[in-house]
């Protein structure tokens, strides 16, 4: 089986969908001639032509708005944000227009907005953001955050086929660092709304997603060998709608939960998960639900600062030890 990077998996997923369905098209800044700032759409212009791979002006609101209009007409746009940080410029369009269209006016809006998110790359406050929390309280949107190459492919394909708008937040730290054997002849589709059990365990659960999954797995490994702790790792994959069942099943088993995310703590997605666990599985908690997240500051680029502000494997280990000892 060919080794495929996370980035190549996204590329393949979009490519296959564009081959399968002529309604699928791509629009964004520098996605055509240049193949995207990270080369995720490299070769697409040559294969699919300028009608289906559209280089746009620097206009995120127009990119998203035009995608929505096209989606109403039955097309399947994939809109790229050059860095996901720029999705904030389309915040109004996404939350007010796109998310509400079906509900308020019966307008189906099947579209994907994707782009590189996340830190650990010395990108500073404007090239490292994790915008999940910004859209979590918007009914009508779906949010996916793949961690593996397999899911990167499976979720972009599922997102393109979904009948509703999907925000697809890929992690740029993983682009070329993650490699997996992916069968060339299998059609990979990862269902939206289903978490993945990334590691089984019985002492403690880490609920997380995206790049943080790998830190959780590292921490689990270290905790197993150094502390004899059996840590379960849940890779949520989809944040909206959230897979409550998978979370609660693990909580009922381990009775201790750590929620880890890369975004700042206050107002981050972990709060929502904590509330759901309180609601659905409070009786099963032997310890408080705890969070490991970035410190509440804009993300600095100096290595020592970024490393300090963002959660690291050591932080997960320390937090898990505290929780296991509770």
């Amino acid at each position, binding site marked *: 089986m060919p080794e495929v990077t996370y980035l190549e998996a996204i590329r393949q997923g979009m490519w296959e969908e564009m081959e399968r369905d002529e309604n699928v*098209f791509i629009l964004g800044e520098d996605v055509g001639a240049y193949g995207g700032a990270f080369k995720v759409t490299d070769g697409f212009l040559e294969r699919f032509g300028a*009608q*289906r791979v*559209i280089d*746009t*002006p620097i*206009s*995120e*609101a*127009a*990119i*998203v*708005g*035009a*995608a*929505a*209009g*096209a*989606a*109403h*007409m*039955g*097309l399947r*746009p994939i809109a790229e944000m050059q860095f996901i940080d720029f999705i904030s410029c389309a915040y*109004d*369009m996404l939350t*007010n*227009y796109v998310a*509400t*269209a*079906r*509900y*308020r*006016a*019966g*307008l*189906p809006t099947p579209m994907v907005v994707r782009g590189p998110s996340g830190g650990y790359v010395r990108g500073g406050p404007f090239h490292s953001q994790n915008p999940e929390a910004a859209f979590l309280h918007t*009914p*009508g949107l*779906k949010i996916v955050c793949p961690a593996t190459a397999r899911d990167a492919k499976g979720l972009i394909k599922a997102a393109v086929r*979904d*009948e*509703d708008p999907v925000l697809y937040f890929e992690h740029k730290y993983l682009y070329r660092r993650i490699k997996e054997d992916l069968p060339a002849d299998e059609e990979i589709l990862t269902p939206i709304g289903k978490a993945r059990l990334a590691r089984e365990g019985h002492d403690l659960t880490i609920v997380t997603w995206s790049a943080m999954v790998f830190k959780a797995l590292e921490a689990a490994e270290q905790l197993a060998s150094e502390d004899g702790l059996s840590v379960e790792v849940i890779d949520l994959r989809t944040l909206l*709608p959230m897979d409550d069942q998978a979370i609660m099943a693990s909580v009922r088993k381990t009775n201790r939960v750590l929620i880890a995310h890369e975004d700042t703590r206050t107002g981050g997605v972990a709060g929502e998960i904590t509330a759901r666990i309180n*609601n659905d599985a409070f009786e099963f908690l032997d310890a408080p639900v705890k969070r490991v997240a970035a410190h509440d500051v804009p993300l600095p680029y100096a290595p020592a600062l970024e490393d300090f502000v963002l959660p690291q494997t050591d932080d997960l280990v320390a937090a898990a030890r505290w929780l296991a000892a509770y």
Partner: protein
Amino acid sequence: MASPNSVSPPPAIPAGLSVEQLLDLYYYMRLTRSLEERLVALYRQAKVVGGLFRSLGQEADAVGSAYAIDQDKGDILSPLIRNLGSMLVCGATPVEVLRQYMAKAESPTHGRDLNIHYGTPQQGFIGQISHLGDMVPVMGGIALSFKMRGEDRVALVYVGDGAMSTGTFHEGINFAAVQRLPLVVIAENNGYAFSTPTAKQSAVKHLTDKAAAYGIPSVRADGNDVLAVYEVTRRAVDRARSGEGVTLIELETYRRKGHAEHDDQSYQSAEEMERWEADDPIDRYIRQLTTSGWSTPAALADIDRRIADELAAAVALVEPEAGPGAGTALSGVCLDPPEAEREWYDRG
């Protein structure tokens, strides 16, 4: 040589319109005004849910422009709050509009979004949202779909003098211009954005000055002259259909009522109001129709009666209707899942 007593034949109808079409235009303008007047009465009786927005004095702008798109070809427009007339031309019915304003179960949005915020591509018009400017990129996307599929269709979007100050207007019209999309943009210059006069929105002399920034042609017309409005819009629609891209049209008109029904209009001068009242687009059109001989007062009165009957029937039908049932609020946010979760504390 004709005898001095002979009646001269009516002048040729402009813009290639037939007499039936001329009466159509009259019908839609009058229907718009009469329907809004009905709504005012219902509003005063507290039967309207939410604000009431009038287009008094702007009926020619809305109707004339909408009449210029070709629904048989599948053209689509995006109305604003003063474009009830455009929607009626596209086939929106008084029953729908009354249901919307009275928040009835069978209203197009089933009680979800207010007033005339509704529409789908199938109806020929798209439900606007409140956030001004946002419909410009969206209609660009609809026009993009026409271009990508090689369809013979045109999109038309309205934007107010005020809404042209928004970033989304700029991004949307620029995107459409650079992609040469089949889009017509109608700037409705009605003098005000809420209380703010156009001169405080922008330092331009005419809204058409904005076209230069996007490399597109523009044209200005008297927004109270329904035939002029029809004609300029028709040309822009034809231009879009033939692949020549975006046109910006400025229609000069005036908002004779307040921003919404509760607005006291203290910032509009009496002189200004009177001047524009004297230029009422319906009165003017009646004069034009009757003095030219294209129609007669009696024929127009017939239409008025037809409209009165239609509206009376619509109100009688809609008024007693029930509002939507509470539980229906949860359906259809997404196709899957089909229903939002019921909150845990829900009674019943």
